[in-house]
Each structure stands twice: as structure tokens, then as C-alpha cells.
């Protein structure tokens, strides 16, 4: 079946350091991948997306890397700030017009 999993349920990073959150998916036919950030009491907020014809995409302080060979997706956050503390979800479109979400990684930035 189609599944999405995150490697670590929690991650703590010192403020100013870089963080990497990893995600694995099951279906090699997947063609659209999104990272969301969810702060406490709020809805998921779009961070960055990538389609399967790309390996890397950069935003402001964030980079998404896609390795289709091993079906792995990662989100890199540079120079982390306290406001980056949140739960991060990867979501995958398996080609059936719906997003399947991973279980989330809680990122804590230590001041």
C-alpha cells in the first residue's frame, strides 16, 4: 500500500544550527511532494514543494531534497530560529489526487 513515514518523531537542534528532517515514501510512482509546518494550535502551513522531475529545490532558509532511487525526501532548515519550533510533516501525492501525510517530526530549537 501507499505509506509515508518520518524517520524521527522528535528532533532538537541548537539555535543557529542547521536541521534536517527526513521522510520515506513507499510508491516510486509518486510525483508531488510537500513539506508542511504546524505550530501549536494552528493548521499546517505550506513550506515548500517539489515535483518528481527535480532533485532539489530551495526556498528562504529551506531546501528540499528528493532521492527517487531510495524513495527519500528531506527538509533542510538553515540557521534555525526559535520560530522554527513546530511539527513538520511531509506529504506525498501518490497520483490519486490526495495527499498522504507522514506522522510528523517535532522540531525543538534550543536557545
Amino acid at each position: 500500500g501507499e505509506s509515508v513515514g518520518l524517520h524521527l518523531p522528535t528532533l532538537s537542534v541548537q539555535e543557529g544550527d542547521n536541521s534536517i528532517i527526513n521522510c520515506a515514501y513507499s510508491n516510486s510512482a509518486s510525483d508531488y511532494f510537500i513539506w508542511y509546518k504546524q505550530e501549536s494550535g494552528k493548521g499546517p502551513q505550506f513550506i515548500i514543494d517539489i515535483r518528481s522531475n527535480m532533485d532539489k529545490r530551495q526556498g528562504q532558509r529551506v531546501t528540499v531534497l528528493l532521492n527517487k532511487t531510495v524513495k527519500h525526501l528531506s527538509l533542510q532548515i538553515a540557521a534555525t530560529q526559535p520560530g522554527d519550533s513546530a511539527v513538520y510533516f511531509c506529504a506525498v501525492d501518490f497520483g490519486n489526487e490526495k495527499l498522504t501525510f507522514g506522522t510528523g517530526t517535532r522540531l525543538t530549537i534550543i536557545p
Partner: protein
Amino acid sequence: DTAVSQTPKYLVTQMGNDKSIKCEQNLGHDTMYWYKQDSKKFLKIMFSYNNKELIINETVPNRFSPKSPDKAHLNLHINSLELGDSAVYFCASSHRGYEQYFGPGTRLTVT
């Protein structure tokens, strides 16, 4: 200038009651969704409408009935509420095939 809005934000009700959650988006998107997030933060799609037409209907009890009066609105009606319905419900919208934008969520507590 809220993009995706939901009402109410909190809903506390007793088992057996019927309740509705409303959702509106002003982004001009053609597709709207309902998700359920459980206590472990797992996000699962329930329904999706495109141009007022139901396109995704996951395995959800038929006590849940979505209604889309127009492209900008997708309401969720729940009959005969049960304890297991307690969760946070998120509405989202998108252009079909692109990133989804989420509302702030409705925390439903069934007692």
C-alpha cells in the same frame, strides 16, 4: 484577509448530537478538502470536492456528510456524534494538483 477560515474554532457537544462545521476560502481555488487530525497528530483526508463535485470519499462513516454549496464553501455535517469523533478537523483548499492551504482547525470534543 483570511485565506481559509473555519467556524467554530472549538466545539464541545454530547454524544448523539448533530453538529456542523463551516469552511470558506477566498483564494479562488477549485478544490476543497476535509481532514481529521487525531490526538497523535496524524492527518488523514476525509473528503475532497472539486468544483462542487465529490472526488475523494475515504472510508468515513456515513454519519459524516460534506456539502459544497459553491466553490468557496465546504461544510461538514456530523450526525449522532460519538466519542471517537473527538479530534481536530481541518479544511483545506487548492488548485487541483497544487499545494493545499489549510484553515486554523476546529477542535471537536464529544463528551
